[in-house]
């Protein structure tokens, strides 16, 4: 069953055709990767899917309904969480608090109820914190719970951002270059973490440059070049695709 379906999406920025007629599906439970050289339109595609940009043409169907034209928070409420290429942690908040914000969609107390600290909001807050510490355990960051998130080492910041997205309990998780700026050890750690996410019944769509990571963890790969999809196949088949080797893999390996 396909969870996310991108159909004929195009986007132009002035004279630049960022995306042209891109279509692909993400099946339920899969880990799918988007690869392509810099400027291929990967992040633009992410921003279109998650509602931060509007395409000129096309459609994005998520969980059976069209989400194009919805605000990002509305798409998030339908079960899509994302991370950002430039880490966007909440400043002046601890690691735990950052993750607690991810529970927003799974709690309901309003301004007035929270101001009055009603019994139901107290109960809700306990639940939020339980899930929060469970996620910190999952990330192996329990020791840093009370540290200010933006003061952590870069690799751990990436993990907090991932944990914050996981706290949303999304049906699909969009990861924009989760290994960018990480060293080899941290990248391996991130790869293990992403593989374990599948065990939490989360579908993953990721943009990534680190080919070893992509080959390790993804089921399917979509290759973009200059805004067009040039290939889509199983990971091992992509490695042998002559077109892909020419425009992308060849660049570094030639």
């Amino acid at each position: 069953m396909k969870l996310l379906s991108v159909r004929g999406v195009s986007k132009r920025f002035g004279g630049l055709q960022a995306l042209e007629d891109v279509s692909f599906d993400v099946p339920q439970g899969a880990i799918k990767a988007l690869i392509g050289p810099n400027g291929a339109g990967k992040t633009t595609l992410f921003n279109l899917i998650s509602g931060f940009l509007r395409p000129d043409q096309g459609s994005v169907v998520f969980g059976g309904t069209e989400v194009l034209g919805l605000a990002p928070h509305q798409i998030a409420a339908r079960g899509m969480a994302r991370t950002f290429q430039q880490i966007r942690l909440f400043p002046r908040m601890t690691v735990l608090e950052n993750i607690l914000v991810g529970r927003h969609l799974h709690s309901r107390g309003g301004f007035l109820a929270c101001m009055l600290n009603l019994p139901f909001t107290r109960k809700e807050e306990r639940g939020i914190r339980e899930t929060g510490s469970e996620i910190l355990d999952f990330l192996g960051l329990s020791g840093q719970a009370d540290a200010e998130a933006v003061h952590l080492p870069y690799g751990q910041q990436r993990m907090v951002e991932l944990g914050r997205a996981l706290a949303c309990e999304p049906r699909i998780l969009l990861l924009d270059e989760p290994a960018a700026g990480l060293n080899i050890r941290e990248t391996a750690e991130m790869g293990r973490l992403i593989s374990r996410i599948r065990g939490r019944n989360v579908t993953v769509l990721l943009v990534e440059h680190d080919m070893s990571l992509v080959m390790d963890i993804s089921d399917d790969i979509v290759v973009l070049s200059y805004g067009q999809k040039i290939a889509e196949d199983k990971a091992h088949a992509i490695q042998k695709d002559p077109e892909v080797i020419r425009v992308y893999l060849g660049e570094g390996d030639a």
Partner: protein
Amino acid sequence: MRGRYLPVAAFAGLIVAIQMATHFTGSGYHLTQLTMSAYYSLLAIGLCLLVGYAGQISLGHAGFFAIGGYITALLTTHDLSSRAGGASRWLAKAGILSFRIDLYGGELLTVHPWVACLVAVLATVGIAYAVGGPVLKLKGHYLAMATLGFGVIIYRIVLGTEFLGAADGISEVPPFAILPGLEVSGKAALRVPNYYLAWGLVIAGMVLLLNLIHSREGRALSSIHGAEDAAEAMGIPTARYKLSAFALSAAFAGLAGVLLTHYNGGIGPSEASVMKSVRYVAIVAIGGMANLWGTLLMSLLLNYLSLRGYFGTYDDAVFGAILILIMLFAPGGLLRRDLLEEVRDVFRGNGEKAS
């Protein structure tokens, strides 16, 4: 949970200690300025939520204070007895209008203060929604300029409208009997109960806001401050949250305006002036931005000093200077949450701090 309310108890202790001190030194007249400080503090802590936590600047909050104050002043002083028909008699019976005797022994028929207060606060919130809707789409300097524009408009309206007393403002506003035997008024005999009433309200406001910032709604507001796109990605409708925070802070400002107007027995256009708005933002800034306690303590101190005339003719200049110095040297505010930690670090001799 305990930790949240412990400072509240300590602050209540401070308020009692101050009253005791004035009692035993025979300087009870200080309580008048301290009571006025309390009402300004009510505005300041509401503004702290908006500016410090949600990260949305407003240079127009004196406008909301004035809207609350002027509405209650108008409603409770405008005599309706000349138009006494069946409707007003019915309204009087329902307690919405009330008769009272003015200074010269004439009988006045005006809106009851409780009703006026309710109307004033609701109107302030309504105006905040109407203004905030379009204005909060702006960010940073643009938001500052737009709210400043709102403040200027309100100031010119109250200054230029005969109906609102123009430059004189509205006087002879009656006391506001909140409970039987407890009225908001500046009578010397009621100085002590009014002092406790005002600070009691501030403490109640603090409890509400402290609860809010430690809840999911408070975290949602803080998340907007600094990473609005990430907040959206977490499913937080940022536009709605900004508007709610704006309206809530306006409600605090409006209520403060209502109560101080009854306490002073009147209100003038200076309460709506832009320099007042700058003063409130300066207090939040020196209080540490996202720091309700810092804002409250600074508001108590600076408003008291200002009202006692310690700043002389440089009153407004002092607050302008505070704002400039804070922005130059401590844009995160002076009383920051991590200030103690940094001081401790210095004494421990490990100055390096990842940032």
